[in-house]
């Protein structure tokens, strides 16, 4: 039985690490570290680096949380640990 929970936790950590990479890339990466080179790309009135810092990162955060909700609910069902 313990093996099952170890597996669950491992899969959970994989999901966390992949999503946190996304979190880092969309805020610190595109909004800060690479903001300056990205600013040479334009999208309507927005320079891309500036857009990621003031708009895009926020939308990415929402998508990341709901991806997490979806992936974890699926994992809970697969391992039969879903609460009623």
């Amino acid at each position, binding site marked *: *039985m313990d093996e099952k*929970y170890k597996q*669950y*936790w491992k899969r*959970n950590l994989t999901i*966390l690490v992949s*999503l*946190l990479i996304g*979190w880092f890339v969309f*805020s*610190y990466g595109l*909004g*800060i*570290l690479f*903001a*300056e080179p990205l*600013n040479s790309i334009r*999208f*309507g*009135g*927005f*320079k891309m680096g*500036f*857009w990621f*810092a*003031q*708009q895009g*990162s*926020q*939308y990415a*955060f*929402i998508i*990341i*949380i*709901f991806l*997490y*909700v979806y992936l*974890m*609910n699926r994992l*809970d069902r697969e391992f039969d*640990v*879903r*609460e009623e």
Partner: protein
Amino acid sequence: MEIQTWTFIIVGATFALYIGIAIWSRAGTTKDFYVAGGNVPPLFNGMATAADWMSAGSFISMAGMIAFLGYDGSVYLMGWTGGYVLLALLLAPYLRKFGKFTVPDFVGDRYYSSGARMVAVFCAVFISFTYVAGQMRGTGIVFSRFLNVEIEIGVVIGMIIVFFYAVMGGMKGITYTQVAQYCVLIFAYLVPVIFISIMMTGNALPQLGFGGTLEDGTYLLDRLDGLSEELGLAMYTSGNKPMIDVFFITAALMIGTAGLPHVIVRFFTVPRVRDARTSAGYALIFIVLLYSTAPALAAFAKVNLVDTIHNTQYSEVPDWFTNWEQTGLVEFNDLNNDGIINYSGDPATNELRIDPDIIVLANPEIAGLPNWVIGLVAAGGLAAALSTAAGLLLVISTSVAHDLFKRTLKPDLSDKNELWIARIAAGFAVIVAGYFGINPPGFVAQTIAFAFGLAAASFFPAIILGIFYKKMNKEGAIAGMIVGVFFTASYIIYFTFIRPELNNPDHWLFGISPEGIGTLGMLLNMAVALVVVRFTKSPPQHIQELVENIRVPGKRS
């Protein structure tokens, strides 16, 4: 109708609503008082979390700060939203599974130590008091500007309202008033911005109007960059803070957000682990509604402001300028006596001082919107301040009643008496907060950096290590928290109180400002904890089982 009449009607109606909800949702047990019975639906918890989180600062000051900081203002936008990813992924579900009442509860139980619990109680109370003083002050300021009452009387009115629902209803009362307050504040924030976006860019969505064109066909943001250059200010879309500082401030605000006790406890109130995950997502949607609008408002208002005021004859300024001059939020000092307002990035020739708060507060007047919109903005500012104040006061009251009395001093306390102590503590906290609102310590702005820095350097690492590192023991956690807090607090105190004249990039450690130092404090906390744990005893078996247990939702078979 007059502005004042509208304001009285709208503010009065919202207050009546909050009191009505308070009476309807009285708390009967400590579980009601601490975690609203643990059965708040996730959607409501999302709204309540958003209102809990968005303070007077977010509502009144943030757009203005962004208008003056440009790109550098992004630290607030990313920092105060990105923290929810950390909350949702790393904290909320596990703390919900743990299923107790407070953050010190978790720290004390996980590290099997009343010493660790006391360190956590101290940090929670300190963080909450520094933060709540600003909210009471914000309440007083809104009252004085919109309703012409003294700031002191405004603070007292705010105290009475909060006292009513926080003391009677505890978390249950707070939760449902926060749901109402969220609706009021978001409506009040969005209505004027949508009007302005349509007027300036022809686009009803401020998030799109932000990247749109003005009447003459130039892009709004290009216009802003042009104006900045003309006035000798930093480029709006690239800013001038060093990159490392932007990085560290953003991180400190994100981690601090995830470590603030009044936000964390909101996730104790939902029924199940998966509800904690979902409600973090809902909370972020509700927060981003305001946070993605704020930078658009900042850009609209700045162009508008510079266009109407810069290079204008003082005798020809619009009415709102003279109105707000009386409050001291704008000041014109005619240095060269030519009667023309010159706004410039060069302090030697700049004749205009603008308080950032004016961007939101005077916004409806600048855009020439109807009087009821102005009343709405007042009600929105009050909703933002009162909802945050209530959440913080509750943390103070539960820390005292539950963690100090029930769990440490008097374990045989009956539920009924514990509830009474919680109410008395809440009442007492309201009075202390009101006192600081009326007599603010002269460093309100710095205390916000303080609250976030300390939350980042104390709770966040202790909780994360407690969940993700089973072998973390009490010696490591306590040593880490003490070093993290001590380092962060000394750095901030040194640069803001002892040697403020040295507070510039040349003297900062690695170029990190006091606002961003909490990130380093957090790393230091973790490093110390991970070293100390190698030389001390592993935690007892039942603690390791507790950790395994909170990692999986549902009952273990």
